[in-house]
């Protein structure tokens, strides 16, 4: 792995690792972000953590498996883990609605984040979703309210929250777990207000212009790093083990920095992170 750490304003770090690779189009990055060979959430958990116990339920009346939540150790420290997972088997993928969380999943995630705050555990969130589940049932269960509550409450949570987008970062459904202290993207990932297809069909009444839309939307990791939306880019080799080693190499020092901050300063930085837009 070619990694060069470059100090930037505000002490943040960028990993520049993509030299020697040919420039890809935004359309190609979208395809790579959606690739079926992409690591799954469950595999990511078993590679990154020596121990993990899944915790279920929103404590209202539901449990949605599209977000896996639980407790684990990371570099010797207790952490809360949240992973949006698209699933592997057909049955699994259907149960997880292909990685589109229903309101219960966001409510479970907030419950676990609040619990992390109570026991002073940092939160690691991994995002790969085309967007929040767009179903009639999700509407009636208050999809908008569930996301809104995450955004509101997470703004005040007194433990570090670090997010990695490792595939699709689809709109509010991704933001609900990417509104903490740092957001990193893997090389083959995207983050956008809407899918390029949706964007093209709304603005140009033509979903087939998705590739063009992808170019305009600035959804690639490089464009988002330049726009200060994310903290950095993590190289993503096709071998999942190596990829997870890269993730750990970024998470460990960043988490260490964040956990050293007094809560007031952490919250002030989190606020400033979004205030600038």
């Amino acid at each position, binding site marked *: 792995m070619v990694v060069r750490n470059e100090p930037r304003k505000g002490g943040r770090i960028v990993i520049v690792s993509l030299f020697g690779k040919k420039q890809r189009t935004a359309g190609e990055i979208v395809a790579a972000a959606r690739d079926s060979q992409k690591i799954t959430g469950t595999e990511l958990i078993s590679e990154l953590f020596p121990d993990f116990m899944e915790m279920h339920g929103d404590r209202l009346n539901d449990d949605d498996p599209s977000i896996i939540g639980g407790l684990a150790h990371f570099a010797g420290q207790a952490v809360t883990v949240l992973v949006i997972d698209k699933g592997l088997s057909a049955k699994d993928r259907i149960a997880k609605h292909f990685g589109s969380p229903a309101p219960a999943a966001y409510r479970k995630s907030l419950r676990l984040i609040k619990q992390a705050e109570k026991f002073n555990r940092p939160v690691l969130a991994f995002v790969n979703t085309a967007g929040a589940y767009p179903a009639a049932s999700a509407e009636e269960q208050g999809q908008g309210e569930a996301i809104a509550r995450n955004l509101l409450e997470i*703004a005040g949570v007194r433990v570090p929250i670090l997010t990695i987008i490792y595939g699709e970062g689809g709109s*509010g459904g991704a933001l609900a777990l990417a509104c903490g202290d740092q957001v990193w993207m893997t090389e083959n990932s995207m983050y956008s207000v*809407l899918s390029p297809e949706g964007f093209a069909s709304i*603005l140009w009444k033509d979903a087939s212009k998705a590739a063009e839309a992808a170019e305009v939307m600035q959804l690639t990791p490089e464009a988002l790093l330049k726009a200060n939306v994310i903290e950095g880019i993590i190289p993503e080799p096709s071998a999942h083990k190596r990829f997870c080693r890269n993730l750990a190499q970024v998470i460990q020092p960043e988490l260490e920095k964040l956990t050293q901050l007094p809560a007031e300063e952490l919250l002030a930085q989190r606020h400033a992170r979004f205030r600038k*837009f």
Partner: protein
Amino acid sequence: MQLFDELKTLGQKHIKANKQAQQNLPSGVWLACPKCQQSVYHKDLGRYFTCPNCDYGFRIASRDRVEWLTDSFTEMDQDIETADPLDFPDYGKKIAAAKRKTDLNDSILTGVAKIGSQEFCLGIMDPNFIMGSMGTVTGEKVTRLFEYATEHQQAVVLFTASGGARMQEGIFSLMQMSKVSSAVKAHSQAGLFYLSVITDPTTGGVTASFAMQGDIILSEPHALIGFAGKRVIEQTMHQKIPENLQDADNILQHGFIDAIVKRPDEKATIEWLLEMNQGKAGELSS
């Protein structure tokens, strides 16, 4: 079940017939209520522009609402301009046209308002400004409104109306959801009251942020309230969704809003709620 299905199709035929009828009507004189499908003589909509049959509040300009809602209003932040962060083709022209149409700098009007003796911060989204979509200026104005209110120890009342994120501003539009939420949180932590009033239609990123973050959430009758668009749900899920799925009545029944208030009652209701919610934790209001 069969009867139920027939009733549904009947309802849809009725809607189609009415849409046709609407097109044949001389414009500006007769309107079809988009919610109950009744034809309404425009003068019968009255001062509040509501359907005499079902109380639906037709979409109105922010500046018109200020007129009947407040006793005084001082506008703020009317000069902020979008930086067009995606350098999006023809966006400048679109903004210019929307500005002319609404006499606003973006999709929300903000300022300090008075109803009776109650002074508070007021924001009113305008569905006529690029469908009330949330751009960077919208988010900045809402954020500044909450910041001003926090600094001056005032309540915030927000009328929402939005087609969702402003596509032409891409990810920067999405970031507004978090920026605003952070300001709402600070306002709430200062013990101050936030009242959100949802008007037709409120969807997408606005529903998934400040519309649903009020201490109290009201809605106008038959406002459409949702996260995902109806077309998106139907196309992704291949599922025909019931007409009333995102109607305020159904949202009330599912527990996501406190009450539905008719437009003519809004002024008195807001004044009363502002008075009811000015106490601070730990103090017994006298």
